[in-house]
């Protein structure tokens, strides 16, 4: 199974999360462990939310909010894609991740399983699948026009 592992921190601590040399070195060693075990498929770090924006849909209106999002409790700072045999294995790998209180009071790694077509099982009927495929086709043709 594939999982996405997201590194979360509080928006208020975001300036502390800016990677130092030591943190990069520790993370590099951790990533190397993941690669050597054949677990890591992908991973990226994200710039601070000051460089980001949110597009909000509410009550039929669309608005844009520029970063930083200092109020956010669960701001994503980076992610990995892992291939593991179980959620428990992902948890054990996540527990090995380097962490340090100086980067913020709380850091959280959230692990979520990635859907594969097989996961839909019997609910994903041929009709639904066909509908999805038509939708994908439509999306592609729209992109083609753009």
């Amino acid at each position: 199974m594939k999982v996405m592992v997201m590194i979360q921190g509080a928006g208020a601590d975001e300036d502390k999360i800016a990677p130092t040399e030591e943190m990069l070195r520790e993370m590099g060693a951790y990533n190397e462990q993941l690669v050597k075990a054949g677990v890591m498929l992908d991973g990226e770090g994200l710039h601070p939310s000051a460089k980001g924006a949110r597009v909000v849909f509410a009550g039929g209106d669309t608005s844009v909010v520029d970063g930083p999002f200092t109020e956010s409790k669960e701001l994503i700072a980076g992610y990995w894609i892992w291939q593991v045999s179980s959620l428990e294995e992902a948890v054990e790998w996540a527990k090995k991740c380097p962490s340090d209180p100086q980067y913020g009071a709380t850091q959280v790694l959230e692990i979520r399983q990635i859907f594969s077509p097989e996961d839909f099982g019997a609910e994903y009927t041929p009709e639904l699948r066909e509908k999805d495929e038509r939708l994908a086709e439509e999306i592609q043709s729209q992109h083609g026009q753009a």
Partner: protein
Amino acid sequence: MPDVRRTIDAIWRMSSPQLIATLARTVRDVGLAEELAQDAFVAALEQWPRDGIPDNPAAWLTTTAKNKAVDLIRREHTRDAKYTAVAADLATRPPDAPDAVVDDPIGDDLLSLVFVACHPVLPREARVALTLRMVGGLSTDEIARAFLVPSATLGQRISRAKRTLTEAQVPFEVPQPDELPARLGAVLEVVYLVFNEGYTATSGEDWVRRDLAEDAMRLGRVLAGLLPAEPEVHGLVSLMELQASRFATRQGPDGAPILLEDQDRRRWDRLLITRGLAALDRAAQLRRPLGPYCLQAAIAAQHARAATWEDTDWDAIRALYDGLAQVAPSPVVALNRAVAVLMTDGPQAALDELDAVGADPRLARHHLYGAVRGDVLLRLGRRDEAASTLEQAAAHAPSTRERRLLLERAAAAGERPA
């Protein structure tokens, strides 16, 4: 809250290969090392649910297994000088620091374990079982379920394999450079066998078997980390990732196989394609002649790069099959090459190719040979011959579904165009 038993299983899977490898270097017997590791695992199953999981579970397992090694050797009062020396060594060595589990920085122990598990003294099915057990960290039950054999049978297969290794006094080491190509070939063969066992599992409910494909991909990536200078290792990783990128599109909702030509390429896994192409680049950068896995990966890469079936670069694919037919000739390669000829030079050239290779009786009786030959005859307008060829192919089809498809095609070929 994760389940304790499943957590212990996960820890076993993550740490047992290195644990067995480290122990095997110390006790110089892979079978004994595996039993000691098992004993430590059983102790963990007893203690951890009660006392909690230790902070460094891998170090706990290592220390426990080493203590069990000392106990065992003392208890048996063996006169074997080898074991006495090992016991003395273990007993006098300072206890491991909590984090010093992995005293195998360049992975030589793990690599030795891989080569021993795939040793030519073992029959092929024993190599597969032993590799999944010791290097993949799978349990005997998991392997038995995946290969659809009773657990007891598989357990016996593993015990017999360990005994064979001990009796043959197979040394625990990485093969010498002159032996390496052949021994590496045996290792890659095992990994690819495991992959195909999972990849070709046709039953939609068969998750256990499909997981084998992921296990093989992990083994391949581990090997690539251990042997980064061997292009064929990267070639095999690339081949597996590229093939697996098509996993979701190979079968229709009713389980019927979907040909490459008809697959929905938008649903191919882009991440696996990117990884597969990167692995192939790493192989190419080593600037050595391309072996069979690199060539097959390069062919898969041509398909992965083509946005549509019509965009496929058949000249490149034909050239790659020419290479493959030289380094690894087989009936299946000959057949695939004929398909590439059909796409580059048309049906008459393809028919000549097929007739040339059809002299091989292994191929002539293969249903895919008849399927391709029937298609080529149809393109040449020889409808009656096409129909009878497809009917013969149907008779050789391995499953009722494939037989039915071929008979449908035969019937369609026999009909006169309106």
